């Protein structure tokens, strides 16, 4: 199947459509909520919680004996929340730093989950096959019900986001100010954390433990490059997340043996790379261009100042001088002289240059105006 056919099939084939919608909605939600995680410097919370949720899945199975995805994911949610609370408490109550707390909870919970998983595997009458799909995620196992749950969670998160937008925003950028205004910071904190954890847990089934963290932060990291406004960032992140989901599912369906989760992550990473380079405000390309331009402008200014110093020794500043004089100093070239002529700062006549009135004024005002910035 060619990629083009596959993308058509995404909308016509019912199984594929379910998967595509599922990954799109998941991408959108995690992009949306991931923005908050990234801005709160908790980018790797996704990584930690998606690993830490594993024992929850196995425990839920051990207790209920059910393999329904929502039962297992509920267990994951509970344990994920416990993990989050513990991480926070380690950071607040001891002198261990965030990275240590995250790595610690991540690995210990996951290890405990593996212990439980292998223990369950060896129980005589437990048919646990399929539990480990949560390790790596299988988008192909998404059924309509899963997609409905995803959509429902997304809608609820959207409503909450609208209702508490102001609170989220102020807490994000100035927690202390939020406290002095009398907002219940703890409640808002719990609310946003709950939804982040919920999204992570829902993503486990689709993209798996390792890749969920990327889905949470890559769209947000990309969106951050395009805007400085929180609202726009959340929106752009949601769109990028949804696009990654859609394109990733399409590509992975077009060939055999191409797992969906990793492809989605690669698509999202490509968008991040693109944003890093080509974003007009912060992108590396434009940064370099601006740097180059500023440097050139500075060179021109330097030459102009040099000319000014020579010219002002004469009563008539338009008195022509030999270009050769400038040779004693560095900082001019044919092209720079040409540029200066274009700006009508100087006039070139054969081997001589003379300042124009504009050039004289420009040089005189150089340190008194904002001409440096405007070039």
């Amino acid at each position, binding site marked *: 199947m060619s990629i083009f056919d596959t993308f058509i099939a995404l909308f016509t084939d019912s199984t594929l459509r379910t998967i595509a919608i599922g990954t799109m909605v998941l991408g959108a939600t995690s992009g949306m909520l991931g923005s908050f995680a990234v801005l709160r410097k908790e980018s790797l919370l996704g990584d930690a919680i998606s690993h830490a949720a594993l024992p929850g899945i196995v425990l839920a199975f051990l207790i209920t004996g059910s393999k329904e995805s929502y039962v297992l994911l509920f267990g994951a949610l509970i344990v994920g929340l416990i993990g989050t609370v513990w991480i926070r408490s380690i950071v607040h109550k001891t002198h261990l730093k965030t990275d240590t707390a995250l*790595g*610690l909870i991540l690995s*210990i919970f996951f*290890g*405990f989950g593996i212990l439980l998983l292998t223990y369950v595997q060896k129980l005589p009458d437990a048919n646990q096959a399929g539990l*480990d799909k949560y*390790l790596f995620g299988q988008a192909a196992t998404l059924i309509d019900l899963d997609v409905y749950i995803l959509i429902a969670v997304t809608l609820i998160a959207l409503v909450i986001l609208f209702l508490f937008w102001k609170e989220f925003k102020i807490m994000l950028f100035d927690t202390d100010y939020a406290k002095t205004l009398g907002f219940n910071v703890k409640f808002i904190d719990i609310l946003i954390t709950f939804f982040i954890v919920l999204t992570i847990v829902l993503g486990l089934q689709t993209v798996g433990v390792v890749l969920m963290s990327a889905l949470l932060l890559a769209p947000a990291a990309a969106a951050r490059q395009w805007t400085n406004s929180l609202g726009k960032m959340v929106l752009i992140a949601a769109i990028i997340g949804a696009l990654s989901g859609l394109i990733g599912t399409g590509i992975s369906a077009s060939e055999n043996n191409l*797992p969906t989760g*990793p492809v989605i992550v690669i698509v999202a990473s490509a968008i991040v790379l693109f944003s890093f380079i080509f974003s007009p405000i912060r992108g590396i390309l434009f940064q370099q261009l601006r740097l180059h331009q500023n440097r050139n402008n500075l060179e021109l200014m330097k030459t102009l100042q040099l000319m000014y110093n020579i010219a002002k020794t004469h009563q008539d500043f338009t008195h022509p001088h030999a270009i050769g004089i400038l040779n004693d100093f560095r900082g001019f070239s044919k092209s720079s002289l040409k540029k200066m002529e274009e700006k009508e700062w100087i006039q070139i006549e054969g081997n001589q240059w003379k300042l124009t009135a504009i050039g004289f004024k420009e040089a005189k005002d150089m340190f008194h105006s904002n001409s440096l910035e405007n070039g």
Partner: protein
Amino acid sequence: MGDAQIEIQIIAAVVAAACAIPGVFLVLRKMALISDAISHSILLGIVVGFFITNDLNSPWLILLAAVTGVLTIVMVEMIQRTKLVKEDTAIGLVFPLLFSIGVILISKNANDIHLDVDSVLIGELAFAPFDRFIFDGMDLGPKSLWIMGTILIISVASLLLFFKELKVTTFDPGLAASIGISPLIFHYGLMSVSSVTIVGAFDAVGAILVVALMIAPAATAYLLTTNLKKMIGLAVLFGVTSAISGYWLAHYLDASISGSMTTMLGVIFLITYLFASDKGLIASIYRHKKQKIEVSLIIFLLHLNNHRDEIEARQFIHLQEHFNWTKKYAESVVDLADKNNMIQFEGDLIALTEKGENFTDLTLKYILTNKDDEIEHLKRDFFLFRG
């Protein structure tokens, strides 16, 4: 106990010790999550190495994996240098990408590759003794023991040789640079040692346990001491203890050895976290409570001093209204003041004793001048509260 059992325990202990040493420095340098990143992204190195050599036992695999580990760090630092995203975001962007490429390469070639992601992530120590190192027809013991033993010796040797340099570059890179010790060299040195250790260890215990073995012992030790040497010693001790006890837990439950080792690490951390005498949760809550009641006591005494002529303000019932204290809390504050002979009762009125007046005078003086030497006196003279 069979030979294999002893060998597994020795391997586990060696792995734990080898991980704990670089782990201490990672935790102190706030780079703990680098171990997580490396342990995931080396999957790509191993897969590529396998494609080149077609041999899962080739030493090239380990080398390529270690190179991928260093590559991960270089990529993370490149992204960090652009200042487009925060440090931790950079880590989170790099390793899932490399890991994804690895997973895709594996599944595209699932038929001709005997390598599955599960075993990379989880590892199985139980099989380690079956992979022997045979030289010239002689059985020299399990291969992973040789690999990890070598790595451990290298770590210990570089630790002993460069202890001073590691210490100063960790705690004060600026000072290190000014006295001619390049923080950069030791940064990349540490990164290379970590990368090689992770690669060597993950073969035996899996990617996630490597992270646990690196971070957990160091974090636990950090709760107990602030002395670098002691911290390293304790970390090694915790690592080895959990390795051996974890083995027996796995033996008893018939479950994954690496999972049990991690669980034991978690148990040791939890106990320390709760009960550590100085930095543990309980100690910290207790200290917080004590400080709170001491502050309340000072407020209460100052209040008495301020309103010494107002009868109303000196009644016990007034405290609850004025400070919004519960009856129980007010009682405990008054009780503490009484025990320290700061107050005396005149009927149902409370008055400052001479000692109490001296104390409040000094406190006021401290508050007004805000000089540290005043508070030192105050502490020495009065902060002998019996509670």
